[in-house]
């Protein structure tokens, strides 16, 4: 969908190129994240795709067409663009902001209004905001408007320059999830720039790691990059915790689950205590096969001969097989239980244990 061939950009007055002979191919419907330290030319590269910066040499094609053969403003109307500062126009209402490109393209009012309403729904922005001004919205809401505005004319390509850089971490995580959710429906070709490797791993189908001067150090799926960093630069950039980072890419269904300390209501107190001892923990679950109703501690057994009348506590954290090992690890650590129960709906699958999770880190 987008192809950069030997693209070089040297800014006037500098001898060293900001981007040096970069070649990169981005497939249709793919999310590619450009990531690297500052000065690596990632933003320059992004801005060359919509010609906000003109390449010094090399060629860039979008959908097979050489972008230099098109009028710059025509090209840009066909490419969604989201920037870190969001850049909503304070003198226009939210609806007018979203309708920026449709208005440039000369859409009539009916079509524009319909599209604006549709987009507001898409980014989960309540319609009452449409007549307000950007100054009246929170950071997260403004960011949603920024994305809606970029999507207004339904461009096949979306360029995002540090889109979540200006919001706090909690809002950022939500917006990232929303973007992934949106992308699963829209299947746009997205090029996103960030300096945050965790964001790159979370959002990218493929991640391009750039070093100073726009050198492509590695271009691969996040899992592959974490498993096999191409060189020392990449390994350093990923950080020493890359093993743990990788956990966020592996679903729980990939590992072997321990059946866990599960006892039926018929079990005796002695049996329960011996199971706990075997697992070296102070609790066990009550259930029958895939039907687990809850858990109890050794203290709960006080005064009971069997488990028949023991009160079952409900699980605070129920993991799903599609959750990541990172979430499983968090659950295990925060619940002080050495294991976290995994359920598929109501069906108990087993326990994710620290042992099994850490096996993936070591690999």
């Amino acid at each position, binding site marked *: 969908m987008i192809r950069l061939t030997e693209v070089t950009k040297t800014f006037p007055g500098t001898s060293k190129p900001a981007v040096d002979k970069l070649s990169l191919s981005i497939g249709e419907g793919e999310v590619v994240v450009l990531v690297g330290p500052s000065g690596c030319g990632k933003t320059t590269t992004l801005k060359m795709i919509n010609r906000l910066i003109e390449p010094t040499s090399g060629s860039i094609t979008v959908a097979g067409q050489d972008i230099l053969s098109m009028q710059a*403003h025509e090209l*840009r109307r066909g490419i969604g663009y989201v920037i870190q500062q969001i*850049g909503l126009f304070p*003198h226009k209402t939210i609806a007018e902001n979203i309708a920026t490109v449709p208005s440039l393209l000369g859409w009539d009012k009916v079509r524009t209004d319909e599209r604006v309403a549709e987009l507001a729904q898409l980014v989960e922005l309540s319609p009452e905001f449409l007549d307000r*001004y950007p100054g009246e919205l929170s950071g997260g809401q403004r960011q949603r408007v920024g994305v809606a505005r970029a999507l207004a004319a339904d461009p096949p390509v979306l360029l995002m320059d540090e889109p979540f850089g200006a919001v706090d971490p909690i809002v950022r995580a939500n917006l990232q999830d929303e973007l992934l959710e949106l992308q699963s429906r829209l299947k746009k070709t997205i090029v996103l720039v960030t300096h945050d490797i965790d964001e790159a791993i979370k959002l990218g189908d493929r991640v391009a790691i750039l070093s100073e001067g726009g050198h492509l150090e590695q271009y691969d799926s996040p899992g592959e990059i974490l498993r096999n960093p191409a060189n020392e630069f990449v390994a350093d950039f990923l950080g020493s915790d890359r093993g743990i980072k990788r956990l966020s890419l592996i679903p729980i269904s990939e590992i072997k689950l321990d059946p866990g300390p599960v006892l039926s209501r018929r079990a005796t107190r002695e049996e329960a205590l011996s199971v706990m001892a075997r697992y070296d923990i102070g609790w066990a679950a009550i259930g029958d096969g895939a039907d687990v109703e809850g858990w109890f501690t050794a203290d709960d057994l006080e005064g009971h001969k069997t488990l028949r009348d023991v009160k079952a506590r409900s699980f605070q954290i129920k993991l799903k097989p599609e959750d990541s090992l990172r979430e499983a690890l968090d659950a295990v650590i925060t619940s002080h239980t050495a294991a976290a129960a995994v359920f598929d709906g109501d069906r108990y699958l087993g326990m994710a244990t620290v042992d099994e999770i850490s096996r993936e880190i070591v690999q």
Partner: protein
Amino acid sequence: MEFLGDLVAWFLDPENWTGPAGIPSRVWEHIQISVVATVAAAAIALPPALWLGHRRRGGFAAVAAINIGRAIPSFAIMALFLPISIRLGLGLGFWPTLLALFALALPPIFTNTYTGVRDVDPALVEAGRGMGMTDGEVLRKIEAPMASPVILAALRVSAVQVVATAPLAALVAWGGLGRYIVDGFAVQDNVRVLAGGILVALLSIGTEIVLGAVEKRVVPQGLTTTEDVVTGAHA
């Protein structure tokens, strides 16, 4: 007290409200020359100021304009242009005064428009450009409206200055409210001098109020939405 009584009597005298030397026609002359001078200055200053601001170039011109404007007194311009005007057959009063007022109004309009446009948040300009606006569209749809509060304020300040300076026209034998002051001096009629002064002050204040009201209506709504309103909406 007697003087005050004379002043009131002057304003109540129907003689002073009729004919070519009456208050209405003097006010009209005053407004005419002020409007022509301000509109001409805006017409000449705005296009280059908007464009240079858009290109974020020519800051020296803005600084030079405001400095020259400050350095040359209106009175000097009139004195300089008077003989030229006579030689060109343009007559005594109107043109030299108009030129002086024009020169007075132009620098603040130019400089404020230039800086107003230049200082528009670059992120907005980049967003507009990135979405496919041409240079003209960026200027028309983003920069000019964003700078409009500054531009309109400059127009208002210039207009008020012009109205307050226009009485000079009477020195070179043109009309306007300056006539009362100049003629009053000539015949040592202090009441008339003061009455003229009061009328000039009132017209200046009126200009300020009217243009202030226009400003409020013209400035885009989102730009007047202050932070207070935001907190109010969320509370």
